[in-house]
């Protein structure tokens, strides 16, 4: 028999949580910057830019994250001759992944702003970038908050996949503990519970924000 599952083992799992959160936060920030660029280009008046960003979104939403992870991990090694540690590859892959999802979410928010807002801004002789920056984006940002929080939940869950290429976050820590203690019936439910404690408050927050924004916008939501 291996080690028993006691407090030290539980502590080991807890100490892996910061890695899950850091990875999620890093990907959220990197993906946020990328996503903003993608969203803005996606609604730009220039057709090639729209095609390019649409293609990017389709590509990353139409392939498994695990494959993206592998391609980035081995691609860095092959294309740039970089033998990188798992973490930069993982962070880059999740940044590209969140860029696509956030870009699509924010495109929706931008396009939800009524057309007359653009026209009014144009009548004030604002240039296109200024119309976007001063008039459209501040309004779009408000609508985009609930789905963005919802995506954060999705991202936290998705970072578990980094365990497969050996990045030690919560799921990988669970695997390692299972290998030493042979107690999968205790450890994996605990791991699931820890994820639940991270995600559930965010899910509730997303729901509440959505209701509040609907109320202020006077949207009658059927869903």
């Amino acid at each position: 028999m291996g080690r028993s599952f006691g407090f030290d083992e539980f502590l080991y799992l807890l100490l892996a949580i910061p890695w899950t959160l850091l990875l999620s936060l890093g990907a959220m920030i990197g993906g946020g910057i990328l996503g903003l660029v993608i969203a803005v280009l996606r609604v730009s008046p220039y057709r090639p830019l729209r095609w390019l960003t649409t293609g990017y979104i389709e590509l990353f939403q139409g392939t498994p994250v695990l494959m993206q992870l592998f391609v980035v991990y081995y691609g860095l090694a092959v294309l740039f001759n970089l033998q990188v540690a798992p973490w930069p590859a993982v962070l880059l892959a999740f940044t590209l992944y969140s860029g696509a999802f956030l870009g699509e979410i924010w495109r929706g928010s931008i396009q939800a702003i009524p057309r007359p807002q653009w026209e009014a801004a144009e009548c004030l002789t604002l240039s296109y970038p200024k119309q976007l920056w001063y008039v459209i984006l501040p309004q779009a940002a408000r609508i985009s908050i609930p789905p963005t929080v919802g995506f954060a939940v999705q991202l936290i869950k998705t970072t578990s996949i980094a365990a497969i290429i050996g990045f030690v976050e919560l799921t990988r820590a669970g695997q390692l503990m299972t290998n030493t203690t042979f107690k999968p019936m205790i450890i994996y439910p605990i791991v699931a519970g820890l994820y639940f404690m991270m995600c559930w408050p965010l899910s509730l927050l997303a729901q509440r924000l959505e209701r509040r924004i609907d109320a202020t916008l006077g949207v009658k939501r059927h869903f």
Partner: protein
Amino acid sequence: MNYVFQFNVVWEHLPELLAGALLTIQLSATAMALGLGVAIVCAYGQSAGPRPVRALISGYVELIRNTPFLVQIFIFYFSLPVIGIRLTANGAALAAMTINLGAYASEIIRAGIEAIPRGQVEAARALGLKPLQTFRLIIIFPAIKTVYPALASQFILLMLSSSVVSTISAVELTAITNSLQSTTFRSFEFYFVATGLYLAMALGFKAALSTIYWAVFQRGRAA
């Protein structure tokens, strides 16, 4: 960049990759059918069941939606044998995919049910239909029709996340790619082609799901 791409070794193993893709398609299609069944039952339970049943179903939905799929697979494959439920790799993969999809899809269908005008339900009751009849004859078809796009993208997400079941040695596309790249040392090429296959499958499923929509909801049905 002094790396020489060699895709011919990938083409030599194309039959094996396609066999893996076939298992991915079979697993996903079966999980879609079963998961939809689970979702419809849950949606009925939530709209017409007594309070404890409703609480149980929302517990299930929230638990699944706030934990990573990878951990759910580990629980099905590694934890359940401890309490005597032993599943094969494919069985565990299918069970995890079904349970996972069931939770997400039931939430989507519930939104569709809430969008049904109350008058329809009241009219059904006035005609003397029992709750189950009302659900089966009046509610469920238009509800699914309303949310069909959301449901279809959830189905495709499921197909993509099935790549994660490679970790429990279910030999679908990702697992086969893993073993081929480790024997040929052509990691990037194999993952690149496998990613392309996933993209093709995503587009294929999208087309198939649109065909199903047309066949079920558009043809000869004035709904």
